[in-house]
């Protein structure tokens, strides 16, 4: 079937299998490989992107369901060569090591801060219950989220 999505501000249309997952549309059709697949059970959050501005796990959304909608991936966050506050905070706070969970983690935090601009540490931690990281122990990811919140004030 034919789908047309706006991805990072650009319209992309393609003829795809009905069962194509949004994450594979992004990676293989839109050629945006930052978003990663980390599991099959909607558990790890590595595939998190924004769908109409809200965080979703793109492995559990069909491209067809996102037809006509707007998707933002990590690659679409920086504007005019300037990193988004969350990206900058990850850099300053050493919020990433191997980087595999990072795109999903960043997008989850962007969405979290949009809905809760001044979260407590506990709210950040609970808000990231659906994003698994194996390298960082989450300590600096939480610091990055709080730093980004602070920067947004």
């Amino acid at each position, binding site marked *: 079937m034919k789908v047309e999505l706006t991805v990072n501000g650009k319209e992309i249309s393609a003829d795809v299998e009905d069962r194509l997952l949004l994450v594979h549309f992004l990676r293989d059709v839109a050629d945006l490989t930052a978003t990663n697949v980390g599991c*099959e059970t909607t558990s790890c959050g590595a595939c998190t992107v924004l769908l109409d501005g*809200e*965080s979703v796990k793109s492995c*559990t959304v*069909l491209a067809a*369901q996102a037809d006509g909608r707007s998707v933002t991936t990590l690659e679409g966050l920086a504007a005019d060569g300037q990193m988004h506050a969350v990206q900058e905070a990850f850099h300053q706070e050493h919020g990433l090591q191997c980087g595999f969970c990072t795109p999903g983690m960043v997008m989850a935090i962007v969405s979290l801060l949009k809905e809760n601009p001044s979260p407590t540490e506990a709210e950040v931690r609970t*808000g990231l*219950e659906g*994003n698994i990281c194996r390298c960082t122990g989450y300590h600096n990811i939480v610091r990055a989220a709080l730093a980004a919140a602070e920067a947004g004030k």
Partner: protein
Amino acid sequence: MIPPAFTYVRATSVDEALGLAAEHGEDAKYLAGGHSLLPLMKLRFAAPDVLIDLGRIPGLAYVRDEGTYVAIGALTRHHDVANAALLASDVPLLAHAAEAVGDPQIRHRGTIGGSVAHGDAASDLPATLLALDASFVIRGQDGTRTVPATDFFRGIFETALEPGELLTEIQVPKPASPAAWGFQKFTKRAIDWAIVGVAVQGQAVALVNMGSTPLRATAVENALASGASIADAAALAAEGTSAGSDIHASKAYREHLARVLVKRALEDAAARS
């Protein structure tokens, strides 16, 4: 990881959805938020030939004040149920339970109707709606009927929905004392399904994951009604249940948890009211 091939069709109205379901028969399944169905399909535990996407049907996502009850459209997402001001004031138990479902990403997609129709005894909302004595409005090609929650959940992933029928609205009577609520979801990790959960509204007590369907803890309720203390009533929490044993918990432990969590939920409800 990838669902088997299927045909995707999109409904733009309830009638169209019902028609598509009738046309494709048992080869078709409805798709709402997809966060109950797609995970099963990705593991190839479910393999419908046709998916009827309900996501574009207008007018099925709302939280409305209907005087004595709150009407919630079946396609209302958990996120919106959790954040509805009307529910925060009039049915805080439901708002709280919706906030406990999954994680933020899941709550942005999953719908209350999808969760109810999926009929998983381990889900938070079916038991919560059972405790609230909710009713479910069901549309079929023959017309509309309303089924109370107490009659809706029939067995493991089995509900009162006949093939092709579509859940359109959840009606939640406003509790006499909205603040008298308690909700306990016991997990190993925050993201896990409830090992055991409890939803309390007043003296109504419902259990998550203590049987093949969400259950009312009738022994507890009867004890409370006859004046028993919370502690004495909660001790009966496991009666009439058929908890399972799995890698997360044994039956005996679940029964113990039910007693502890019912007590805590009832105490919270009492403290709030």
